[in-house]
């Protein structure tokens, strides 16, 4: 994860979304420490990630890039989502 980005979606937000949309209980600190591990190691499947993307799109009132739902790790996902939200790309 790069430092230059202002994080609109934090690790804690992602942990809360994983719980709400997919029933996955993960400690935000663990998620932060293991941010380069695959989503599958936390028990989140591809439909679960799709639900998180939809939830963020509703929350921020804009579409996210298609690659968002194909991200393999929390780090990759947060970087993509936050870059996209910041630049409006």
């Amino acid at each position, binding site marked *: 994860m790069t430092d230059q980005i202002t994080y609109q979606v934090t690790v804690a937000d992602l942990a809360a979304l994983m719980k709400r949309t997919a029933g996955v209980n993960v400690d935000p600190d663990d998620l932060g420490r293991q941010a380069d591990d695959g989503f599958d190691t936390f028990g989140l499947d591809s439909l679960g990630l*799709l639900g998180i993307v939809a939830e963020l799109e*509703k929350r921020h009132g804009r579409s996210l890039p298609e690659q968002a739902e194909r991200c393999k790790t929390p780090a990759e996902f947060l970087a993509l989502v936050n870059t996209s939200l910041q630049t409006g790309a």
Partner: protein
Amino acid sequence: MRERRRDPRHRGAAVTGLGVVSPHGVGAEPFWKMTADGTSSLTRLGRDGCENYPLKVAGEVRGFDPAALIEETYLVQTDRFTHFALTAAQLALDDARWGPADAASPYSVGVVTAAGSGGGEFGQRELQNLWGQGPRHVGPYQSIAWFYAASTGQISIRNDFKGPCGVVAGDEAGGLDALAHAARTVRRGTDTVVVGATEAPLAPYSIVCQLGYPELSRSGDPGGAYRPFTSAACGFAPAEGGAVLLLEEERTARERGAEVRATVAGHGATFTGASRWAESRAGLARAITTALAEADCRPEEVDVVFADALGVPEADRAEALALADALGPHARRVPVTAPKTGTGRAYCAAPVLDAATAVLAMEHGLVPPTPNVLDICHDLALVTGRAHPAELRTALILSRGLMGLNSALVLRRSAASSSHRRSTLV
């Protein structure tokens, strides 16, 4: 079948575990107690949002807390019918004292379920989101939760079963067809198959779908809504819940020390057209004859019949005549029962519950009665009032679907079975 049994390569399909989630309770034990006592669990439909429909009486599963039984990751992506299925599957595995260590490999365990309506409650919620708020508000799990195949998939995933899987969409009778398909899967080389059906049709959308069935009882009296084989028959009361059975290859089951409680001996299925009940006579008789032939079973060997018992006069008459056609004079003597009048008809799950009841009845030497039914107007030895003690070795289970499928299944008590769970209830 007897010739085949002597063949050392013969693979028999043995029932080793029962898992039940029904209006009578969660678990085979409370279910059997209520069933043997002839108790009715039919009540006025009280589910939220279901109060103002012409359907007034149903069999609801009460006191079922899925969160206490199933992990949250499964709960959020599944409907109530799959919550029932996951629970019943776990109960069946536990009942058979089967654990992951008993599998030779994940590929040696398969799953087969039947479903009549899929996940109506989940589907309604998401469709309301769609039309109330827009497509972005529909959760992605909608794509799998309301699908007929959901329970087979989720049972497999939760338990890491990778053997042959199947879903039977065969109307109510599909519950028996699923058992037959599972037995064939065992014969063809899979050691263990988790098989059954559960339904959750008591949500507003699902109820509206059923209101078009002329066979659905509109009675508001829990004691009078579902009274098959009587002159007061006025249709059937629907139910939720169901059963899952563990089927294992007979020899493999014995080798791991499991009790072989019954074997799936024969099956037959026919189609005679939706709501053409008079014609179901010939179809049901043919299904019975086919099932008995596969089981190498003479009509006189049938010790108990679990009737379809639709509760529509024309259909009840057709069933009584089908039994006479297929069993001859034995049809007037053999005890017939329809314990489902105490729970309601849980569509595909109804005959699977009957199969579970048949196993328990054979073990206890007791034919359970037909609740709420007293004055029979057909030439059948229907067991009413109290349970009827009898030595039971062979059970015939019948099921017909509203869309015209007829099935018969023969279960036999294992000849080598030593335990006898004779009941103290009578």
